[in-house]
């Protein structure tokens, strides 16, 4: 967890400054789980390259995002908007705040 905890500090601070306007609704009819599958799963499921890279940085069993014990929504939002490690950032014009919030909520609360 050490490497991830170090990386998490500045992005959490950044998250607090994010103006997450709630003006937009998540894509009609799509749940956070569905949006995760659509927008994130190419890398962040078992065997995905994101999971493989994270497996070098986080404790065993925590690399797959949907199986991580704790994943605060604010951290997901900050990492997505700012990027981390090998992952470039994703901006609002390509993933709306509402969709990102739905994905982050799903990853935070699914357990």
């Amino acid at each position, binding site marked *: 967890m050490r490497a991830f905890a170090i990386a998490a500090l500045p992005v959490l601070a950044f998250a607090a400054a994010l103006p997450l306007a709630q003006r937009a609704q998540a894509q009609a009819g799509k749940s956070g789980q569905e949006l995760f599958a659509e927008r994130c799963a*190419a890398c962040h499921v078992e065997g995905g*390259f994101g999971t493989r890279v994270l497996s070098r940085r986080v404790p065993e069993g925590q690399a797959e995002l949907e199986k991580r014990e704790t994943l605060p929504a604010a951290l997901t939002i900050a990492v997505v908007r*700012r*990027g981390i490690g*090998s992952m*470039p*950032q994703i*901006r609002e014009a*390509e993933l709306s705040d509402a969709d990102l919030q739905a994905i982050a909520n799903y990853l935070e609360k699914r357990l």
Partner: protein
Amino acid sequence: MAVLPPGLTQQAFDQAIAEFRAAIGEEWVFTSDADRASYLDPFDMGDQDDHASAAALAPSGVEDCRKILEIANRHKVPLWPISMGKNLAYGTAAPEMRGSVILDLKRMNRVIEVNEELGTAIVEPGVSFFDFKAELERRGSGLWMSGPAHSWGSVIGNALEHGVGYTPYGQHVETICGMEVLLADGSLVRTGLGALEGTKEWQAFRWPFGPGLDGMFTQSNFGIVTKMGLWLMPEPEGMAGVSIRVPAREDFHALIETLRPLRMTDVINAPYTIANGWRQITGGRVRSEVWDQPGAISRERMEELLAERGQGWWSVIFNLFDSPAALDLRLDKIRRAFAEKLPGATIDVQRWEQGQPQESWMRQEVSLAPLGVVDWGGNPGGHSDFGPIVAPLGDRAEEVYSIIEQRFLEYGKDPWIGMFGISSRALIFVADMFFTRTDAEETERCRRLFRQLCDDMADIGVGLYRTHLRFMDDAAAMHRWGDHALPRLNNRIKAALDPNGILAPGKQGIGSWEDGE
């Protein structure tokens, strides 16, 4: 901290932003620090803030773009158009000139047409390779996309930046056929046969009556490409995936001389890739696991690691596309050529036929896998590459390779060098620099290495196929012939089409190469 376009006061910029909001809607004008940060280059070879934007605008279509251009011209606001903004290693979504306003075309994301009979399509800038593949599958298309190494980018953006793929259509700029381009003054032009009202041939033939202009809108700042036609490959009857291990460093000359005639005669009918030893030792681990000394990983250590993996000093990979019987003939010619010129080489082949499940070696699946190597050298990792265009002649390729390898070692960087056999007559070298982004000494050393290599290559008449934002002026200035006649012509075209200089200032050094960084 606020970032302003050069020459504008805060008050003048605020007025322009207010007008942009009124023109395209408040929610599509991004000015917060967090929003602007999402357009920085995460892999920059230096301080990301050097290429910070002042704001971002996300138009919904051509009419929004026209409104933006009118306002930008009036207020002298520089715009930096991006499509998917995934020009990773070359600047991502960031502008060359600090204080530019991003013109984010992601919302213009329609696949306008797929023509199964002619094997053509028309797309908008915001269509990614992920999107395009999904749309072809949704339509049950019999056409295949040629994708680059990572699929996050824009189909248009990749072609305009001269990106490459791994099918017979892998030289993506060569698949462009017809564009719709918005010029800085707001006029809309269709190139090629698209200039004919009611045309059915816009995507069928590149050359209209008069000059073909598609090329001048690639790697340039002469206009905003709002639609692009492209050619697509019909699904082949079969494929063969060929992997060749070549044992020794000294085999490079013979390797190039063996591959060229095979590519020239279309026996190898898609781009091949060559990887040197350093490039083959990275997969599945990070650098600190194999090297804990200062400087580059030594050749001796690299060769130990290669031996552990059973790999040759050079690796060559390519796919062949044809009917099963014709693939047999192609493979026979390849085997005979290598048996004659490089008998020590080992050739492995995989096969696929229509109807069988696709496999990863076919490179038909959309993927982001190459990003996995970014933190090879340290975390947070960054990367860029030096990419000279070189004739596939043994002597010439050896000359260029030796200079690059020597310079990388001299500057303490692993010579992570590969080549694309992009066409019959050209290799594109890809010499990657990986660095820890927070290490100021290392990033500065990489910048010096890059500029040293620019000088080295210009001295022997070799130019670059693409660069990161930081080196666009350097790369443009390498074109010295005739007292820089070509860069000067580009400047003149720019001045004529965009007298206020609002479109992508600094792009490819056009209009800025004489000033440098």
